[in-house]
């Protein structure tokens, strides 16, 4: 059975108009998909496509208006499941500053396990290993506001890891970072995934989505495309029509094909393109 199962999910935000009457605005208009244990799924889409709302539905921060979200068989809308669900699916948010609770790095990483009521010695062990895992062990006693954006984001990841979840949902974790910070965060996400962590990575950087083994494209509250990065990025025109674009290697490959250079389909990375061109030249 899939680790995460989303069935016909609909989500309405409720606002009130000037008279105080509630108005529903539909952010997710009925989506279904599965996420397998140990997979790396990227979700891409514009602002307002519903991707962030979707993320918050994956650990019970938001509950479905209609439809169902099941985590490891647990229905998120059943109130007794909420702590279990949040322990299984941890989250890292966009703004590196606004998710760190404590004024000392290691106390912040301990926050999650403390909430779970874990034994102090075990918390100590988890905090140390989580901080080493994101290479921030030397910053244990530092104040978060003295760190760079990328470093803060690594602390936030350590805080999620220390809860020993089975899955981490990254909600646009790189949007506010510089290229170095982005590389670090993506590197850590891939590293965690290679050790068995299920990763859901929401982003608007195509080259980050290209690292996933499964890509979901959202637009207007619906899933527009789904598949491996190779499958999704080969549909360049559709992506462009959603104003999303494709990685440069994919773009260049298709331009060359149009000009009659024989480049095979399914090129995704720079290395693949360079190999394909040199091989075509050799013939």
């Amino acid at each position: 059975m899939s680790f995460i199962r989303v069935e016909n999910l609909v989500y309405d935000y409720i606002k009130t108009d000037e008279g105080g009457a509630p108005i529903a605005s539909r952010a997710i208009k009925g989506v279904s998909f599965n996420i397998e244990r140990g997979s790396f799924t990227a979700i891409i889409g514009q602002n307002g496509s519903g991707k962030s709302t979707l993320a918050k539905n994956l650990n019970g921060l938001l509950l479905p208006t209609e439809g169902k979200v099941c985590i490891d068989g647990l229905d998120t809308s059943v109130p007794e499941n909420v702590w279990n669900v949040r322990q299984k699916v941890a989250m890292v948010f966009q703004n590196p500053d606004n998710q760190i609770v404590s004024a000392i790095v290691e106390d912040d990483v301990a926050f999650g396990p403390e909430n779970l009521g874990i034994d102090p010695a075990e918390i100590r062990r988890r905090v140390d290993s989580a901080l080493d895992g994101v290479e921030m062990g030397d910053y244990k006693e530092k104040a978060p506001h003295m760190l760079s954006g990328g470093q803060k984001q690594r602390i936030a990841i350590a805080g999620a890891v220390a809860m020993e979840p089975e899955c981490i949902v990254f909600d646009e974790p790189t949007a506010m970072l510089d290229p170095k910070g982005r590389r670090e965060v993506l590197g850590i996400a891939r590293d965690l995934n290679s050790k068995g962590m299920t990763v859901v990575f929401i982003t608007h950087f195509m080259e980050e989505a290209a690292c996933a083994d499964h890509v979901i494209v959202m637009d207007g509250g619906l899933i527009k495309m789904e598949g491996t990065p190779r499958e999704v990025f080969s549909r360049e025109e559709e992506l462009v029509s959603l104003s999303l674009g494709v990685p440069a290697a994919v773009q260049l490959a298709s331009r060359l094909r149009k000009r009659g250079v024989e480049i095979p389909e399914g090129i995704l990375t720079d290395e693949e393109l360079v190999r394909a061109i040199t091989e075509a030249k050799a013939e």
Partner: protein
Amino acid sequence: MIEVKNLTHVYNEGLPHETTALDDISFRIEDGSFVGIIGHTGSGKSTLLQHLNGLLKPSSGTIVIDGVDITDSHTKMLDIRRKVGLVFQYPEYQLFEETVAKDVAFGPSNLGLGQEEIDERVRRSIELVGLDYNHVKDTSPFELSGGQKRRVAIAGVLAMEPEVLVLDEPTAGLNPKAHFDILKMVQDIHVREHNITIFVSHNMNDIARMSDQVLVIHKGRLAMNGTPAEVFAREEELKSMGLALPEATEIISQLRREGMDLPQDCLTVDQAAEAIAAVFGK
């Protein structure tokens, strides 16, 4: 024309933790240029920008804009602000008025202009950033989308009608579409106003595609100054500073290493496609 000469800025001068943020920087920017500044976080880029409109005063060195030395203590602050408009990172966080029109009017009213002139400028700059004046003027800026808020914030600076527009990472945190739209808008304004535009970005594709001149700041020093083609030809040096090439240039460079005979100065996917196709005789 902007002329920066031997600009040096030392934070906490004379204290034990003094740090040199800018170290002997000199460059010239001709009228009508579109200038890109690159360098990683903490390189001194932001400190440099804040000198350009007088928010920071240099420890030594001068900045002369159209013959006026803005580092001279006799130059009036408001005159500097009128010459150089600075748009900070995430400028939407500085919005504060009840309506878009009032917020955009903040700058021009600080300049002490007459009401008629202010209204005219507000209308003009809201239209310049691609928003419908009649549609947005009375709405609260906080009800707009992220990309629109940023446009309003930029309009607030444009309304001061600066001769030089400086933008610090104007697309930070934006989605692909909003990113593209904002850059298009900045380019349009540059063409229409024909002023000097200076922008900081981490996106090398944008820098290569849009700039006439690129400045590379590294550890507080001006490491490179030239056209995009000149700067991005110095691959080794850039990479040693932790900076990347534009994606297309990177692919071309890898192909050159494989022994293919390609020109070094391809900056965009189109140029790269052209050059590679030429090798294949297509």
